[in-house]
Structures are given as structure tokens and as C-alpha cells.
């Protein structure tokens, strides 16, 4: 399953505003947000701000980079 990203700015109530919409077959499956410097050791990581269908978890995960995030989303969608 292929997924693609579209840049977006997200209002999270914090300085974490740089984000991507994640689509699978033209359907929105997740919103990723880059963590700002407010998050110290997590700064720069990508946070699953929202996920749909299987691409979700009660405690939202963080990813070192966008590739890792997309791989996790793909795996979750396939396994669901």
C-alpha cells in the first residue's frame, strides 16, 4: 500500500505547527506534526497527531523521521 504526504500547517495549541496530511489511495489516514524545540530530546521527531482506521493508537507514537512514520502507518493499515 502506498501512502503520500501533503504539507500542512496544524493548529495544535502549541508551537508544533509544521505537519503533513498522510493519504492512502486518496483517503486521509493520518496527520503528522513535527515536534518543536519545546519538546527538548523529542524535538524534530514526527508525532502522530491523528490517525484513522488502523493507523491509530490510544497513546500516539513518535517517529524519528517521516520514513519511519510512513512505514508504521502502512503496516497498521495493512494489518487492519
Amino acid at each position, binding site marked *: 500500500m502506498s501512502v503520500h504526504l501533503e504539507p500542512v500547517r496544524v493548529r*495544535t*495549541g*502549541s508551537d*508544533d505547527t509544521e505537519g503533513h496530511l498522510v493519504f492512502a489511495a486518496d483517503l486521509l489516514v493520518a496527520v503528522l506534526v513535527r*515536534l518543536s524545540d*519545546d*519538546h527538548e530530546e*523529542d524535538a524534530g521527531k514526527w*508525532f502522530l497527531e491523528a490517525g484513522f482506521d488502523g493507523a491509530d493508537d*490510544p*497513546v*500516539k*507514537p*513518535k517517529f524519528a523521521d517521516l520514513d519511519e512514520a510512513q512505514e508504521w502507518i502502512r503496516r497498521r493499515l495493512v494489518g487492519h
Partner: protein
Amino acid sequence: MAPTPNHSTDMFIRKLGGAARLSDEEREAIAHLPVTVRPLGPHQDIVREKDRPSQCCLLLEGWACRYQLLSEGKRQIFSFHIPGDIPDLQSLHIRVMDHNVCTLSSAVVAFIPHEALLDLTAAFPAIAAILWRDTLVDGAVFRAWMTGLGRRTACEAVAHLFCELYLKLQAMGLARDYAYRLPLTQLDLGDALGLSNVHVNRTLRELRGKDLITLHGGTLEIYKWQELADSCDFDPAYLHLERRTA
């Protein structure tokens, strides 16, 4: 000063509502409990799921929590514990532990053998009733946490927990002037409230931005108690603290 068995029985008496509530005979029996006092490091398990303990643990110093581990390393914290608490009191009557208890900070604990506690409660039904009451209050706190996990926003849940901990610490004489030592990480708070540490971080910033609290260097300061309590519909009735504070 190093904690002594006397210190631990004093703490037990405080836990039971203070010396005034106990007869001379009851106090004497408590003073003769064969306790073993042990210092523990942070993040050390005191009792584990599936264990069949033969003793209960009275927390004398430091913080502890009850928790369970799930697959993929996920952790749910069920409760935070402060000095005076007996987080594994249930093991007195339920043989097998269905969760873990660990320290969160450096701690000092007093282990009280089940046999001695059973003898004490059999000889003094008033003490048994106080401990029973304690488990009922425990249940009330769990209900409040369920509401928090299921129905409160991140901001409300964090605010509610901070209010709860302040009143519990204050009742044990461990906090005043709306400030207390809070040796919990953002991960601990998240694992208790079902939040990612990212959301905990944002929430703490939001509460600080509203000048309600600061959490810095392990100390929580509450600047506007009433506003914080109102923001999360905090009603302390479920803590049933009137007995201790009377």
C-alpha cells in the same frame, strides 16, 4: 535521621487517622508490629504481578505507583502513592498480586508481615474498620481516575491530578502553601492519564501559560488554586479527607 521501626509505626498511626483515634492498647499493639524498614532506589519493584506476598508495604518516604505492563512495553499507572500509603494492602486478603507496585523516587518502606497485620486486625476490629475504609476510599479514587481517563480533556485530567495530589499530601502534612515536590516525569504523568508525553508537555505549557501552575525541578507550584480546581470540576469529596483533617 535514618528511619527507625518507631518512625514506621508512627507513620502507621498517622495513616490510621492519628493517635487521638486509637486507644492506648491499640497504639501499643501497633508499636510492637515486627516491621522491617528498607531503603529503596527509584524505579524499583516492591511487589510484582503474580507474586504471592507474605507482607504489606507501608511507604515511609518517597513516591510509589501501582502499574501494569502491556505488550509493546506500554504501561498503565493505576495510582500514585505517598508516605503513609500501603499500596499493596489488598495482598492481605487477595493472595495473588494482579498488578505491580514500584517506587518512582528514592523511597523508604516498612514491610509488615501479613500474619502480624491479621493478628492486629483480628484483635482490634476498629483498626480493621479503618483499613477497610481505606480500601473503600481507594475505590473512590479509582472511580475519579476512570472519569478522568474516559471523559476529561488532557488539561482537565492533569489539573485534576495536581489538585488531588496536593490535598492528599497536605492531609499527611507533606505539602502546604499550594506547592509540593512532585518527582514524576512527563512519561509517568502520561502513563497515568492515558496521554502521550507530547500531550503532557503541551498541557503543562498551557497551564503555565494561563499562570495556573509551574512544574520546575520536580516542584509543582499552584498559583491559582480555585481557578485550577474550577477548570477541571475538582470536587474533593471523593478523597474523604475529613477524618484526617478534623
